[in-house]
């Protein structure tokens, strides 16, 4: 699931498909399909950015090396951030 902040990368889509056996690999595939998207969410040390949130199967995910099951839903959110 793609949040509004990133839908410009995906032609306006709020849901897209991507492949990978780890969360990091899914982001790499997303970046191949939608160049630039990954770095807006994941920094150069593979950490989820401070005001972004990533969930897999409803659980918060922050380890890019963690496995992701076939068919799982990866959700990206812009967290609450004022100003």
């Amino acid at each position, binding site marked *: 699931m793609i*949040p509004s*902040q*990133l839908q410009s990368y995906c032609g306006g889509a709020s849901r897209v498909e991507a492949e990978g056996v780890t969360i990091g690999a899914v982001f790499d595939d997303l970046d191949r399909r939608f*160049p*630039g998207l990954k*770095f*807006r*969410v*994941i*920094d*150069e*040390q*593979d*950490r989820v*950015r401070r*005001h*972004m949130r990533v969930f897999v199967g409803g659980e918060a995910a922050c380890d890019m090396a963690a496995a992701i099951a076939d068919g799982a839903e990866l959700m990206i959110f*812009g*967290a609450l*951030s*004022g*100003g």
Partner: protein
Amino acid sequence: MASATQLLIGTRKGAWIFKSDADRRSWSIDGPHFLGSVINHLVLDPRDGRTLLMAAKTGHLGPTIFRSTDGGKTWAEAVRPPAFPKAADPASGRAVDHSFWLEPGHASEPGVWWAGTSPPGLFVSEDGGATWDSVSGFNDHPMYDKWVPEGAGTPDGALLNQIVIDPRDAAHMYIATSTGGVFESRDRARTWGPLNRGVEANFMPDPYPEYGQDAHYIALSPPKLDRIWQQNHCGIYRLDRPGETWERIGKAMPSEVGDIGFTIIPHPRDPDTAWVFPMDGTDVWPRTSPGGAPAVYRTRDAGASWERQDSGFPREQAWFTVKRQAFCADGHDPLGLYLGATNGEVWMSDDEGGGWRRVAAHLPEIYSVVAAPA
């Protein structure tokens, strides 16, 4: 002679491009570009007159660089924005929070750009801003942790806030930082040394350290490139190379105004003339116009004396200030001066500061204003 001018305006909520007629009297507005994005700097490449680079991020999304080769009609994102190398221990590795300053490379190096970031980092692009590489000479310098101590910085984070290239020598560079002061390289950013002698750091145990100062802004005098002006957290300074010791020329400012501010703008043709926009650096550091009465101060004798230029500005209850990249000159004769304020107003003078008029109001908080030929 004046001619059409454009103002490239970065704000906390997007970018605008203002274009003037030949007399700089009326202005058209193009924007917003990237509404909602934090735009720290928007710069035109003087080497081709059409390439624009923009340092952007949002409250949520990470930092990036947008590039336009048609004067801002269309934009493309950098393929590889500035980013630190992956650390041996990624948990504690540095990550770019935002790019703060964009500097076109030397005239002899078309396509080269430099970027300064928060946390302090120096990056270079050799392909017009499409891909960026970490400059190891600074970012991996053995003294980096001393020059950029953990916890130091500004309310928006520690900064490598400026890059200055000597027009006579592409290998001769200066950078300004909020954590270590000014540094100089004579080998195109491979090695660096501090250049802070005589500059106060009244927030350090040794108030005149080798490094540790907060250099808000530095500028070479175009007609006298061995003269460097500096607006520092602790006053206004001037250094004439090959000298190594800065002189605090801000001591000549009126005591009720002080010599604290963010920027200093040299005259492009007169080496003894420069302008500052003071802010209140007393007590708890309000960082507002002193006394609520905005004014520019000009020196025409290399800092021996300063004159107040406030004609046109509100005389009371006006508390805006002007940030590091938000004061500039256009190079015309008579010189145009422009400043973008924290209250979203753009002010200009078309007579070298003699009179000021408001060009725009109601923009978001302004972070940068760059004047360029239209």
